[in-house]
């Protein structure tokens, strides 16, 4: 590899050819401010339109300023990152951006988390030259069940467009219009619900301002908790425990399972349950379905659809309903853990507690924004009453805790309530890419072969590469597995299956980068993908520390089948835990 020598702010530095000034500066501890630029290096996602012009630097011999994010280093280059000319340019450009940005920071949903806000502070913008009747670019506001768009706050960083098109290949958003009115929007600037949007929320996850945010349901929770006629229970998804701490200043990757349970209890939830329990249940149903299909297939039944696709991820479900309406019978019919939990809570648990369905409020805390959409789907309602009433994000939970004056750091570690709070290590790793399929393999292997696993960890299924494949030896029968995270990779994998390039028995797909740990409801990563990696590692650590690590060994799951469901794929199970899909084709 060719090395290039240059100096940045009088410091000599040597970097590989092709490195940008921005990266070279970072190497010697100079953090050039940037706004539109985003590089999730662990995930291979980069947004570099060169549009904001904040990261400009002076390069000797160049007549204008160079955008450091996209200018490659050259031998002997002399770079200055903080001359008066540079500082004035950055400040002036920031002033321009702010001149076309609403000034309602104090009541903005992104207040305190906004990259634009903190950058304006860093750059020292103290006033904005007022031009009489200065135009503001304003647009119609749009709210879906999951996301809100307030494009008045858009700064055209194009991150959302990159996520939606290049990473997710959803194609709901595009840059539209030109010049001052240019903005990122769905076709015809219509509502997202009319677009092929999957509500994966990755646009929200990367938005540096308050232009794209989640629908805030915290007030509904507060009202429900205060209603004496309601029994309010909560379930928390696996990935939440690995990220919630970040909202309270803890290191990324700190697991806060116990503190989270304690906080939820203090918020007033009647029962603090765990979605992980439902994840174990999912494995029972999905694993059985998988084995069922494989056995039939091996016996020569050609009507069987393989590979089986996981269906835990609601954005993925939306994606295939929209893009692959011809393949609706391929994914597992098993509901997602969130919905299985809701269905069991409002039947089995409600019965145990003797609470009427209508008086039981099920709240879920999810790393996800598509879950808000999922819990409102009609097929998950009984007489209009949803199995899961409200789904809030990790960020919303943090907000609730703060609003309720709970000092998170000093909380004790507490356990979940029973019977819907017990879970295995297999369930915990649902929160990261490869986890669902590993959990399924652990159970399917033992059931299929009748042997105990010697080694519970399937390292070949782990990692952060976008598409991974592995073959697992089921005692002589090779089971081929495909894994994809990010919908663009899912599309590639599926197209490969269609074209015959791949031959899988089972495929796990997660819409978000890294799986649920990188979900759109998680604390903002602000472009630092090491945070997602830390959460990913934390979940495997939690799994390792669990005594029970296979779903079918969860005693409460065994009990649930004994008491209520019978066996996996039984009629009751089918009725409560399985679903069907719809053709929602859109362009």
């Amino acid at each position, binding site marked *: 590899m060719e090395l290039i020598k240059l100096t940045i702010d009088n410091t000599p530095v040597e970097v590989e050819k092709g490195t940008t000034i921005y990266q070279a500066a970072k190497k010697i501890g100079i953090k050039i401010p940037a706004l539109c630029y985003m590089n999730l290096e662990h995930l291979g996602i980069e947004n570099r*339109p*060169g*549009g*904001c*012009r904040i990261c*400009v630097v002076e390069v000797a011999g160049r007549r*204008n*300023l160079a*955008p450091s994010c*996209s*200018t*490659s280093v050259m031998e002997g280059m002399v770079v200055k990152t903080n001359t008066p*000319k540079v500082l*004035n*340019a950055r400040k*002036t*450009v920031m002033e*321009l*951006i702010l*001149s*076309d940005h609403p000034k309602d920071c104090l009541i903005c949903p992104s207040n305190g988390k906004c990259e634009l806000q903190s950058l304006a502070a860093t750059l020292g913008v103290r006033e904005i*030259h007022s*031009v*009489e*009747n*200065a*135009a503001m670019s304003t647009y119609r506001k749009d709210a879906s069940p999951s996301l809100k768009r307030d494009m008045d706050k858009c*700064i*055209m960083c194009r991150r959302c467009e990159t996520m939606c098109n290049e990473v997710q290949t959803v194609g709901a958003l595009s*840059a539209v*219009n*030109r*010049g*001052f*009115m*240019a903005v990122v929007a769905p076709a015809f600037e219509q509502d997202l619900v009319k677009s092929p949007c999957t509500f994966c929320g990755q646009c929200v996850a990367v938005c540096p301002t308050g232009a794209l945010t989640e629908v805030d349901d915290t007030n509904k929770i507060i009202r429900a908790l205060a209603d004496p006629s309601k029994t309010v229970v909560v379930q928390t998804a696996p990935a939440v425990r690995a990220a919630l701490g970040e909202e309270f200043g803890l290191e990324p990757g700190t697991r806060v399972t116990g503190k989270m349970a304690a906080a939820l209890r203090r918020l007033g939830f009647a029962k603090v349950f765990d979605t992980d329990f439902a994840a174990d249940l999912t494995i029972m149903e999905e694993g059985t379905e998988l084995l069922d299909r494989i056995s039939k297939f091996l016996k020569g039944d050609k009507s069987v659809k393989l590979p089986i696709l996981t269906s835990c991820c609601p954005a993925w479900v939306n994606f295939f309903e929209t893009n692959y309406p011809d393949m609706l019978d391929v994914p597992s019919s098993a509901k997602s853990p969130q919905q299985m939990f809701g269905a069991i809570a409002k039947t089995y648990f409600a019965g145990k507690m003797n609470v009427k369905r209508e008086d039981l409020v099920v709240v879920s805390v999810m790393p996800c924004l598509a879950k808000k959409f999922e819990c409102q789907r009609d097929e998950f309602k009984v007489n209009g009453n949803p199995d899961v009433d409200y789904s809030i994000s990790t960020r919303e939970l943090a907000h609730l805790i703060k609003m309720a004056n709970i000092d998170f750091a000093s909380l004790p570690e507490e356990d979940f309530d029973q019977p819907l709070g017990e879970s295995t290590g297999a369930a915990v790793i649902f929160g990261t890419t490869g986890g669902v399929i590993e959990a399924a393999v652990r159970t399917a292997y033992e059931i299929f072969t009748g042997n105990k696993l010697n080694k519970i960890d399937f390292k070949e299924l782990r990692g952060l590469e976008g598409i991974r494949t592995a073959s697992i030896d089921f005692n002589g029968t090779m089971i081929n597995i495909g894994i994809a995270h990010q919908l663009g990779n899912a599309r590639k994998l599926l197209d490969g299956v269609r074209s015959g390039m791949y031959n899988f028995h089972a495929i796990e797909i997660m819409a978000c980068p890294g799986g649920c740990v990188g979900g759109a409801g998680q604390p903002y990563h602000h472009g630092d993908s090491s945070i997602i990696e830390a959460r990913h590692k934390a979940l495997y650590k939690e799994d390792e520390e669990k005594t029970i690590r296979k779903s079918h060994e969860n005693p409460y799951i065994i009990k649930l089948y004994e008491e209520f469901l019978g066996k996996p794929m039984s009629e009751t199970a089918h009725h409560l835990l399985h679903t069907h899909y719809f053709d929602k084709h859109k362009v």
Partner: protein
Amino acid sequence: MAQIKMHLLVCGGTGCRASESKRLVDELNAQLKANNLDEEVKVIITGCFGFCEKGPIVKVIPDNTFYTKVKPEDAEEIVEEHVLKGRKVTRLLYENPETKEHVSDSKHMGFYQKQVRIALRNCGFIDPENIEEYIVRDGYAALGKVLSMTPAEAIDIVKKSGLRGRGGAGFPTGLKWEIASKNKADQKYVVCNADEGDPGAFMDRSILEGDPNSIVEAMAICGYCIGATKGLIYIRAEYPLAIKRLQVAIGQAREFGLLGPKILGSDFDFDIELRYGAGAFVCGEETALIHSMEGKRGEPTIKPPFPAEAGYLGKPSNVNNVETFANIPAIFLKGWEWFSSIGTEKSKGTKVFALAGKINNVGLIEVPMGTTLREVIFEIGGGIKGGKKFKAVQTGGPSGGCLTEQHLDTPIDYDNLVAAGSMMGSGGMIVMDEDDCMVSVAKFYLDFIVEESCGKCAPCRIGNKRMHETLEKICQGKGTMEDLDYLDNLSKVIKDTALCGLGQTSPNPVLSTMQYFRDEYLAHVVDKKCPAGRCKALRSYVINADKCMGCTLCAKNCPTSAITGDKKVPHVIDQSKCIKCGTCYEKCKFGAIEIR
């Protein structure tokens, strides 16, 4: 009826008419009649000779004698000496400024060398829809010549000719070709940028309409040089005639085997397709143009990578504009030595300009690099319309700047124009006179930029909008000195930080007018006056009591009843009610209403 034996051509251009050419014609006719020559000799009034400084002009046909500064009193001598006796009136002949010799034959006058047509060599001379006429004028011979060389040899000729891109920035064409030729790829592309978008420029359109084959030939030459077999012409959809003629030319070239496989018996294959623009000025920028050809929004991307490395569909692509290509066949036909002998040290050859605005001879001209603005405007262009005073000339379109009287004798080339705060651009040249308000002109260009900005980068998207609003404020008489500082800083920051060439040059009209016409800005800001009277808000209509007859016509027509006064008594305009519609000014028969 007697046969006409002689014609006396008298220039009827505006300049000459101002210097009494009309009376000269009358006098000549009277003299002819007096000598009974009016049946045999005819006086003809012609269009402008473009020699207004020496006007009025009289040219005698058939002997091509050229008289300058002819006064009505000279008519008698011309008729008696030249017409009757066949003796030229030496004292009226054109004097060569260098040799001080009298030149009698107009064909040997230096003036006629001011325009040299290379790119426009065939425009107007051949039927653009007939390839045979092009072939007769040595068409495709350059391609034949090139095919007998190696690509490197051919590129070397382009390099030595000194040809620079005619689309704006003036990048050396030969070097561009060399870079594209050196990048290895399974497919490369030759792209012709025919997305002429400068408001007030129509050079490329004229070449495409008048000589489409020259572009087809040049693109094939380029293809051979860089190793491309495909050519694409990106042309404005607003140019239907140019599109049609290109289609005809491409079709005929295919028929003749001058496009397609194995051209002229060589192993070289080349063909051309058309791609249409759809009304976005920014697509003149090469990366934006390429995105547009790929069916995307025409947003520029950061260079590098340059199109020569990764262009159309990610393949090496060479983008040149129409006029650049039009020069190529001529360079190969007549040699690089010939081409590089024309022009200045760093800018070789000629440049086509679309001369427009407040000028008498609006037209398409082609002059050697190094010609001065004065020669272009006052000699070729015939001076300012209506005998008004020259104020500024805008070159380079929205990316250029306004140049003033002090630049009139500057030789035109790439570097001089940039040094003066403007740029060559594609060749629009808009002349402005004393009635034009330079703040409004700057606002006009900003308006264009705001409308055409792609919106990708913040400085251009928002900065130009704010500049436009500030200029609007100044034109409304609400500007402050801080606004001028604001404009100055914004202009510089946009220049330094905008993403593409168009954004980086967009403040030029403001910067150059602020530099050369600061007085005018100050008049708007401090005195709240528009010296040219163009800014409506700063105008006030006042009745001159000495001239007002009290006819009441103005008062009757005033839409806001701002004018009062009794019959036959001078009227008064109430400034608080006046909306400055100008109706009174138009209606007054006595010129009593004045604009201040």
